[in-house]
C-alpha cells in the first residue's frame, strides 16, 4: 500500500494530519463564505479545502481517503457547481436584464455576510466547484500512485 517515495500512515504524520485537517476545512470554508468581505474568494478557498484530501491521504492511506471523499460524488458535484454558476448568471435574464447582471444587489447593508446579491451566491458556487474538482484531481493522481506500487 505505502509507496516507496512517499511515507504514509506514519505516526507523526498521522497526528499532524489529525491536527491540521479541521483547521484547513474551517479556514477554507471561511474564505469561501467571506469572499466579498475579505481577501480571497471561491478559487483560493476551494484549493485550501481540497488540501484536506492530501492530509487524509498522508495520514490514513488511499483506501480511507476514497471512503471519505467518494470520487463518483466529487465528479458529479463539480458539474453541479458549474451549472449553479450558470444558473446564477442566468438570473439576470429572468429578471429582464442582461446576462451576469447583479439583479438583487441591494438586499442587506454593505459589510453583512448575506449582502451583495449574486456575488455571494456565485462565490459559493465557484468555491464548491473548485473544491470538488481539485479534490477529485488529487484523488485521481494518488490512485495512480498507489496503483503503481502493486
Amino acid at each position, binding site marked *: 500500500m505505502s509507496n516507496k517515495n512517499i511515507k504514509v500512515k506514519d505516526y507523526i504524520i498521522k497526528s499532524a494530519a489529525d491536527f491540521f485537517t479541521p483547521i484547513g476545512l474551517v479556514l477554507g470554508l471561511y474564505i469561501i463564505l467571506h469572499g*466579498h468581505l*475579505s481577501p480571497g474568494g471561491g478559487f483560493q478557498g476551494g484549493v485550501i479545502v481540497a488540501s484536506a484530501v492530501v492530509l487524509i491521504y498522508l495520514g490514513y492511506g488511499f483506501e480511507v481517503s476514497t471512503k471519505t471523499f467518494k470520487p463518483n460524488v466529487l465528479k458529479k458535484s463539480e458539474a453541479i457547481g*458549474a451549472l449553479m454558476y450558470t444558473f446564477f448568471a442566468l438570473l439576470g435574464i429572468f429578471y429582464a436584464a442582461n446576462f451576469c447582471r*447583479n439583479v438583487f444587489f441591494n438586499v442587506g447593508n454593505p459589510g453583512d455576510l448575506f*449582502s451583495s446579491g*449574486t456575488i455571494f451566491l456565485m462565490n459559493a458556487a465557484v468555491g464548491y466547484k*473548485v473544491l470538488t474538482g481539485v479534490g477529485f484531481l488529487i484523488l485521481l493522481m494518488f490512485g*495512480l500512485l*498507489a496503483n503503481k506500487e502493486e
Partner: protein
Amino acid sequence: MKKFLTYFSLTVFLIIGCYTALEMAKLAPTFDGQKINVVELYNNPKNYDYNDADGVANLMVKQTIDKTHAINAVTAIVFDFRGYDTLGESFVLFTAISGTVVILRNAMKGRAD
C-alpha cells in the same frame, strides 16, 4: 445532415457576430481618453487630478460599493463586472479535469471508483 447543421450554425454565428460588431461600432466609445492630459500625468503623477477621468475604469474604482454592495473590490470586479471571464475560467478547470480523467482512465482501471 450533420455537416449541414454544422455549417448552418457556423453561418448563423458569423451573421450575428457581424451584425453585433456593426451595431457596436455605432455606439459611443466607453473610453476615449479625451479628458486626460498625458504629459501632465507623466510629469507628476501624484498631483494629477483624477476627478474628471472618464470610462469604465473610473466607474470600477469609485462606484464599486454603490453598484455591488461588496466591500472586496477584487471580488466585485471578478464576479460582477467580469462575470463572463470567471465563467470561462471555471470551465477551463472543468475541461482540464475532464481531460485528466480521459487520459488516466485506462491507467487506474479496477481501482478507485
